[in-house]
Structure formats: C-alpha cells, structure tokens
C-alpha cells in the first residue's frame, strides 16, 4: 500500500502497440477547487476496447467524459492537460466542443432514449448532421449492428420509451453509431441492465470493435476481462483529506489481471478492497 500513501505516485506510461486515436494526458482535473483527478496518461488505441476500472470516486468516469468534453456542461469543471485527437487538442481554445461530440459519441449509464419513435431516435443524429442519403437504410443498418433490428422492425413507430431496459440501451447504441462516429465512449453501459441484456451488449461491443474504437468504464471487473483489450486501473488517494483519483496502472487486460506490476492493482483485482 506504499504506493497510495505517496501522493507523488505516477503510473508508468503504457506503451501502446497499435495506433493511438486519442492520446489523453490528464495533468489535473478540478471541480471548482476540488482536485478530482491528477497525473493520468491514458492512450486510447484504434479499433480496440479500452476498459477503465477502479473503485468508486476514482475519476474513471470523469476522465472518460473529458475525452469528448461532456464535462464542459458542468460549469465549475476545469481540465489541465491535453487530449490529442487526430493531431488536435480537443481542449484548444478554437475547438468547438459540439463538433468534438459528433466524432466522439457517447453511451450513458442509464438508457436515455428520447421521447420519440424508435425510428426518430436512430435518425436523430443523422438529421442533426443534415444527412442527405437513404435514411431508412441507415436506420436499419444501425439497428442491425446494435442487434436490435429483429426485435423492433415491426414497431419502428412506437415510442423508444416503450422498450425494455436492455432494448433501450441497444437503441441508444444504435443512435450513437448511426452517425458513424470515430470513437464510442461507454460510461458503465450495463450497470442498469440484467445479466441477459448485459451479455447482449457485451457481444455487441465485441462486434463493434471491428469498425469503431471503444472506451468503456465499468464497475464490473469480469466485464473488463471479457471485453477489454487494454485496461486502465484507477484508484483514489484520500491521504490528504481530499479524494483525488489517479491512474495506477495501464496495460493489456491479460497482464493487468494476471500479472499486475503494482501491489495496489493486485489487491483490487483480488477483491481486497473496492
């Protein structure tokens, strides 16, 4: 546990093997005066699934939401560091966060379909981007990729809110991928779902990997072992009276779970604290 007590601990950088699509270097993230996350370098590799694990309050969701500037909606949020996406820092002054979010999509913890038809939910992003092609075809393709088409093809006019929780979450994934974003951020996408729906969403993630880059925050370590190629383990430092999250270790999932470098990682994955 020595590593925790030392507030200056910084994780060894992870040497990515493939192309890096988002190179995230967090120096500090503040909410007002509160230091939420410090010193975490998390490269996201192209067409792979990067899992973020760690105990509650370790900042894994905060880091994920920083990647597409969703945290900008919180007024007191302040990001120090850089998120390099295709050679541009998404936190540069000239960057429009609205455009960042069109390329880096997001799936949330609670399924959040709009109060409109299933079809309109999926077409929402296409219309937003003034898509001129065959709308029906794109909607069908997105629903098929989200493994939802068979269940909803006869009731596309029904409200998205009439579906079950698992179906709603797959609808949200279909909505997110309809616009063909580059990267899909998933913030605990299965935490509100039952085991069967979780299974379906996990299989979906593995299929989506062929075309998209995914970053996944999960509370469930088994989920990380099942789907993530690379895993980043965050922990929380409470030694100075604050609750500051930081990256402890990042590496191939197999290595993190079978042969972690840090004692803290070992303790966490063996269930000694949570």
């Amino acid at each position: 546990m020595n590593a925790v007590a030392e507030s200056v601990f910084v994780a060894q950088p992870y040497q990515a093997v493939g192309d890096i699509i988002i190179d995230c270097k967090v120096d500090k993230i503040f909410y007002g005066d509160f230091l939420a996350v410090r010193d975490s370098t998390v490269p996201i590799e192209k067409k792979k699934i990067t899992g973020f694990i760690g105990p509650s309050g370790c900042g894994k969701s905060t880091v994920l939401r920083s990647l597409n500037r969703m945290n900008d909606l919180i007024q007191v949020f302040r990001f120090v560091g850089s998120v390099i996406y295709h050679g541009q820092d998404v936190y540069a002054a000239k960057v429009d966060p609205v455009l960042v979010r069109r390329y880096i999509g997001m799936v949330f913890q609670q399924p959040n379909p709009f109060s409109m038809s299933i079809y309109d939910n999926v077409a929402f992003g296409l219309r937003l981007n003034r898509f001129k092609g065959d709308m029906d075809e794109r909607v069908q393709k997105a629903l098929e990729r989200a493994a939802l088409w068979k269940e909803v093809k006869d009731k596309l006019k029904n409200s998205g809110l009439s579906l079950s929780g698992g179906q709603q979450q797959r609808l949200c994934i279909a909505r997110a991928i309809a616009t063909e974003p580059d990267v899909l951020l998933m913030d605990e996408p299965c935490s509100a779902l039952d085991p069967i729906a979780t299974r379906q969403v996990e299989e979906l993630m593995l299929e989506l990997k062929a075309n998209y880059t995914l970053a996944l925050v999960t509370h469930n370590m088994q989920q990380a072992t099942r789907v993530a190629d690379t895993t980043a383990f965050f922990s929380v430092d409470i030694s100075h009276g604050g609750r500051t999250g930081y990256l402890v270790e990042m590496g191939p999932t197999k290595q993190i779970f079978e042969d972690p470098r840090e004692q803290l990682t070992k303790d966490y994955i063996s269930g000694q604290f949570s």
Partner: protein
Amino acid sequence: MSDFDLTMPPEAVRPTPQLSRQGFEIRALQSTVLTGLTWLAAVLAAVPLFSVIYLLLAQGGSRLFGSDFVEVITGLPPAGFEMGGGIGPAIVGTLVMVGIASVISIPIGILAAIYLGVLDPHSKMANTSRFLAKVLTGFPSIMAGVFVYAVLVIHWGYSAWAGGIALAVLMLRTVVLAAEEAISQVPQRMKDAAYGMGCTRTQVIWKVVLPTGLPGILTGVLLAVAGAAGESAPLLFTALFSNYFISELSEPTASLSILIFNFSGMPFPNQIELAWTASLVLVLLVLMFNILARLIGQPKV
C-alpha cells in the same frame, strides 16, 4: 372487549372466537362516520359545478339549443323592448381579445419558461422572475384592468387591444409557471443524450426539451386561455362594451362576460334570458378548453 383469553393454557376449554364484525364498537363507528364525511365532502366539492351547469341549462338551454340557435349565435343584441336578438358580437369579441392575449402571452411565456427551466435556472434573475410570476398568481384581476386603463386607455381610449393586453397580463403567469414545470421535468439524462450526440444548446432545446415537454406546455396554455375567456373585471376598464360586431381593433369591443353583467341588470325578460344564454355559452367555452387541456394531458416522461 373480547371475552376470550389467548394466554389460557391450551388444554383449557376456550370459547369459540367471535370473528364477525362488531358494528357497535367505537372504532368501527368512527371509521364509518369518517368515511361517510369524506364521501360527503367529495360530493359537495362537485356540487357547485353541476348546479351551475344545471341552472344554466334550465334557464338558457332552451334559447341556445332551440330553433333560435343561429340567431342567438350570430345576431346583434336586442334594444329595449325588442324581441329576439343574439350575442354574436360578444362571442366574436371574446374570441378576438383572447386571441390577442394569446399571441402576446404565449411566446413571451414559453421563452421565459425556457430561460427559467433550462438556460439559467438558479440565477438571481431567474429566481426573482419566478417569484414575481408566483406573486402575480394572487394578483386581483381587476388590477390588471386598472393598470392597462392607466397606461393605455387614458391615451387611446377603450379598445380590443387594451382588453387583449389586460388579459395577456393575467395569462402570462399561468403560461410561464406551467411551461417551466413541464420543461424542468424533462430528465437531465435526455438532455445529456442530446449533448452527447453533438447538439448545441439551442438544438437541445428545440429538438428535445420542447417536444418532450409539449403536452405539459399545451395544458398550461389551454388553462390560461380558459381562464382569460372567463374574465370580466379587466375588460370593464379596457374594452368596455359594444352592441355591434367588431370592425377594427381600436374600438370598444363586446365580450360575453360584460354582456352578462349588462343584460342581467336590465328590466326586460328578453335581455335577462339572453344573459342566461350567454352564461351558458361562456361556461361551455371555458369547459371545452379545460377538457381539451386534460385530454392533451400529462408529460410523457
């Protein structure tokens, strides 16, 4: 009360337990009486509406739904000892002034509600504005008439404009508060989803917040319209009255509520009967808006 004792040893002979309802027990009586009282109160609450509608149907129904229907709806009010006649100008006048009030108050009200509900809900400005709208709820309606009289009527005379503006002052509070309620009930996760798709704040409001809150907003708007249609005090000072159909918005204008007030005080049976008929028309109009508001119903989320 009970004459058996469960603590008796099991081998002792117990009397057969008495399980049937004890009608004269105090608690049973209390329960019956209180249930009866609440039932009575519920009936009493419904009595005014039904008795008013019954009375209006009895007094004005035959004239409205009889052979004179077209004359009553479209005709001019009768003079002194004249027979027949109708309330056409008053119906048109009421609709025109409620229309003016709606055109003024609905856009302002909904825009204000967007500011209060989405853009800056906790700012000082929003808190003040919300507080003032709530204070306005208890504002006597005649004061709206006096206010418009002092500001507009003194300079430009009685007109449909002035009447509409006075009604708009009264409608605004209902529209603002109901629309804000509907808008703030749109869940944050839906707004997050829209931001996550790459919507600007304007797009989030137009494409998600307003469509999702629409049923609630419409309910508020229709209740405001119903309330304005039934107002009489503010029109007394602003639109006054006229015996003729409205030809321009800058002249005194008839309205149902003022016609009822004028005719019911006249010594002629024909006019008094028309006042009853006008009351029935007004109540039906207001009821229609109210029922429509209920049908459009509650927000979907």
